[in-house]
């Protein structure tokens, strides 16, 4: 499975993502934001970081960069596009995903492990995933997902909510919500479920000695579903 990671000025999880993808057998290449086109890929990843220093709004400047047209075309043709953290913010700013990531409710930068519940498995990312609750890592200042009531209803009706913050046993409540996100939302899909944006970083959970291995499950699952 071929993948491309797009690097924006200020991306800082691009190399971690590269390491993670290669570890599980993706043929990954790095693509600069100023390039016109993306090499043939089965998966495009917009990595975490602080593209353009989070100027204006997180992800807003990156969402207008040269490479984005190719990303949008790829997504509209059904290709898998994964946005992690700042990548999620960029995807909402392009309009590929609904809503926006606002500043965390309590104004703090959050860096911690969280549990997320997988809400939908009828898609190429989570289909046949063995676990329902994953332990992943978050590190963000703007992860407070917000959308209009109509958009939320449409997300719910189409099962576009991908993952939600929860307790270790899968309970979704206010206590498990780190940033004030509406309905504990940590990640969503587009309507066709080929575009996934989420705040948690699976690439930080790929080593049992350093962190944990629930991220490994995520990457292996994408590969398994591709075969």
């Amino acid at each position, binding site marked *: 499975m071929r993948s491309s990671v797009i690097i924006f000025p200020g991306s800082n999880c691009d190399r971690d993502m590269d390491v993670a993808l290669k570890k599980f057998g993706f043929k990954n290449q790095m693509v600069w934001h100023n390039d016109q086109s993306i090499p043939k890929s089965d998966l495009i990843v917009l990595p975490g970081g602080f593209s353009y220093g989070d100027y204006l709004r997180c992800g807003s400047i990156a969402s207008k960069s040269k490479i984005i047209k190719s990303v949008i075309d790829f997504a509209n043709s059904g290709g898998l596009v994964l946005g992690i953290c700042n990548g999620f913010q960029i995807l*909402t*700013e392009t309009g590929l995903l609904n809503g926006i990531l606002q500043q965390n409710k309590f104004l703090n930068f959050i860096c911690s492990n969280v549990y997320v519940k997988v809400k939908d498995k009828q898609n190429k990312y989570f289909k046949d995933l063995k676990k329902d609750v994953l332990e992943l890592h978050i590190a963000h200042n703007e992860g407070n997902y917000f959308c209009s009531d109509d958009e939320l209803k449409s997300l719910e009706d189409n099962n576009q909510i991908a993952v939600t913050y929860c307790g270790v046993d899968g309970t979704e409540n206010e206590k498990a919500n780190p940033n004030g996100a509406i309905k504990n939302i940590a990640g969503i899909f587009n309507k066709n479920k080929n575009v996934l944006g989420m705040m948690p970083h699976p690439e930080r959970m790929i080593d049992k000695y350093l962190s944990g291995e629930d991220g490994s499950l995520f990457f292996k699952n994408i590969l398994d579903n591709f075969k």
Partner: protein
Amino acid sequence: MKIKVIVTLKNGVLDPQGKAIQQTLNGMNFGNVEDVRQGKYFEIEVNEKDEKKAKSLVDDMCKKLLANLVIEDYKIV
């Protein structure tokens, strides 16, 4: 021609920074401050003599980049 734009959060959208500023002001004995909403202000120099045209260009810019209409409103002043 200089066009000025103010971008603010829509009513009902949580503004944690505004809230923090309000609480700080209250703590500084400005007890009558009931609410603060923080926004952004832009001064855009447009190479265009016709004010109407310049404003319509800036309006387009607001929709496409300067404001995110999911949570923000803009006002060309």
